[in-house]
């Protein structure tokens, strides 16, 4: 019994330790995302200020849209990472579910802004470059992560 209690305590502390690592990881990802993609926003504003033709010309409309989407999605995903980290102790997620959601969220945080950004580097008229193929799977991963977390909050498990 005592052994069992000791094991439970160990499991709990392991889980707490895992959760703590996950929280720190996503806080780090979130804040770094915010830092990187607000910097990108600053660069885009500078492009407007300096009237850079490569970014502002009519022929660059697709590039402008892609870069703007990279900036916006990257920033919002930064917030989402922070929100995920702060939600972990309230959501009733199993370790596996938390790990899956974490992986999906981190993958999205990389793939989605990267797809938009690289897609804007080379454009074909109204179509972004081929790197845009990163975006749809990233969008699917984001949905997976959100559903996993939402299920954790709606679970009745003690």
């Amino acid at each position, binding site marked *: 019994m005592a052994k069992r209690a000791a094991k439970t305590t160990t499991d709990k502390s392991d889980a707490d330790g895992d959760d703590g690592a996950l929280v720190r990881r996503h806080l780090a990802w979130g804040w770094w995302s915010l830092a990187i993609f607000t910097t990108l926003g600053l660069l885009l504003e500078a492009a407007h200020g300096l009237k850079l033709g490569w970014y502002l*010309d*009519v*022929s660059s*409309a*697709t590039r402008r849209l892609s870069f703007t989407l990279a900036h916006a999605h990257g920033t919002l995903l930064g917030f989402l990472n922070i929100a995920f980290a702060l939600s972990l102790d309230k959501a009733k997620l199993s370790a596996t579910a938390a790990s899956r959601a974490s992986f999906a969220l981190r993958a999205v945080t990389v793939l989605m802004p990267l797809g938009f950004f690289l897609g804007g580097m080379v454009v*074909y*008229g*109204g*179509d972004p470059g*081929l790197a845009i193929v990163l975006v749809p799977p990233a969008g699917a991963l984001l949905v997976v992560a959100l559903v996993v977390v939402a299920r954790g909050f709606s679970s009745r498990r003690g």
Partner: protein
Amino acid sequence: MRPSSHDSAVVKSAVAAAPSRPRTSRRIVVGALVLVMFPLAAWSARRHFQLERRHDENAAIVPQQTRAGYVTSDRCEACHPDEYHSWHRGYHRTMTQYASPTSVRGDFGDVKLHGDGYDARLFRRGDDFMVEMIDPLWQYEVDFGQRDVKPGETPPRVERRITMVTGSHHMQAYWVPSLVGNGQLSLPFTYLFDDKRWVPRGDVFLHPPGGRHQEQVWNVSCITCHTTGGQPHALVGGKEVRSQVGEMGIACESCHGPAEEHVAANQNPFRRYWLHLRGAGDPTIVNPARLPAARASEVCGQCHSLTDLSNDIYLGEGRTFVPGEELERSQPLLRQLHPTPALAKHIQEDPAYLRGYFWSDGTIRVSSRDYSGMIESKCNSGGKLWCGSCHSQHKSDPVNLLWASMQADSDTACTQCHKEIGGAVAAHTHHKVDSVGSRCVNCHMPHTVYGLLKGIRNHRIDSPHVTGRTGGSERPNACNLCHVDRSLGWAADALARWYKQPRPAGLTDETPAAITWLLSGDAILRAIAAWHFGWEGAQKAAPVADAVPYLASALDDPYAAVRYVAGHALAKIDPAAQFDYLAPVDERRRAGEKIVRRWLDGHPQTAEQAAAIEAQLKRLTEQRDDRDVRAME
């Protein structure tokens, strides 16, 4: 602790007794919001219904998007934003527009106009542009012998809304409904942008004096080239007209063909990326740049040429030419140098037919027929030259559509093939490298096309030569259009010396060729010569001011268009020279005399010199080719 009923009563009374300030403030806020929102909502609704009404009205004028296979430029922008916008800022798009405050450029501020036997009052009614004029249908029937005017009959007058405008670059013509189907007839006045004035419609064209401008039917005269996929349908039910267009103006599908299949196929993103990555063309649409040179030029040639349009094109189903197809199949070219039975038929119907289009050597001489000029060029026989060698719809200055990399009048267009000349310009031109005489186009594409009240570069690319004949409809040579103070003999000597050209016999007249053309040529030649005295190339190469007495004499030309061109050339020589080409003859003569007096102040002449000028003027004017000519621009 639960509150007692006493407490509850106290609370209620306290609430009742509480000052009503918050509630009053809320009411003020709500009231203010309503006050602001209601007018905004009302304005938005009104605007919405106005736009709806205008859309319905436009559809009633001439409906768009009705020809099978056409989707309009609206569908092109999403995938081709750069191409769409480069087209949108150009003048092809605005060739025909529905009348609106953004498209109408003429002065409609309660203006009364008279001239050429017409009078009209132009005014605004809200966003509508209105005209009060002789019933255009009545006028049309009179003009074309379908109605006899009884003695003392007063033409009926009507008030009409301007429905459409043609042109947005140099001048603008206007159209009003005929009320026979959706037939549109011309407002008999045109607005000239540079001059900021209205002139009778007939006086913007070069045509024999005395002739009155006849009512034009837009659905027949203009729809074929000034819209995309236009279908006149002007014979349905005899007098009925039910025209429709793919799109107003000259839009994407004029040059790329109907795009319905292309749009449908490319809704598939995998197809689009497959095409992007392959870098190959899309077989569902025509890209003129990927066509063989001859086929590609025909895309422009469908409008910028003289072709034999069948009655079905003019009056029925409209043009059947699709970019990429052979133009000859549906629109056989009419070329003086390659006569056909179709051309013979036109000449039989109108013996002056050729004079309206061609110089005597078979070179086209009226505007909007540049393809007809280009195909007669030696350069064209190499199989490489096409319109896109120098022009681009999408990467160009919208004024001349020359490639952005080719400055106007630069040599780049020619030296991309003639590299050896580009490397030794002066040796070839015998002019200073940086002079107008060393610019390829000034010698090989001089302004020997007349249109839009000015000289325009001829697209028959050839070398200057002197034939020995002057006057009539003889094509003027490039040398004497720049050196307007020199004789034909002088030019012939230079060409013989530099290029071993044979010198024609009998070139003894020392009169400057340009002066001879100005006073003795036919009306198109006179207009071309007059224009050159105001051209900056001639102004750099010759003392053009010496020609003022001759140009002043041209102010008395029987052709209004020649007077217009001569008056503008004089104004470029002496900005103080004021002249109204439509003023009564006495007033015009007085203006001419005043200009000459001003010139004499700066250029004193001895009695002998003055007499010599007078004699020369008299001699050359007496030799004037007065055969009727109408520039079929």
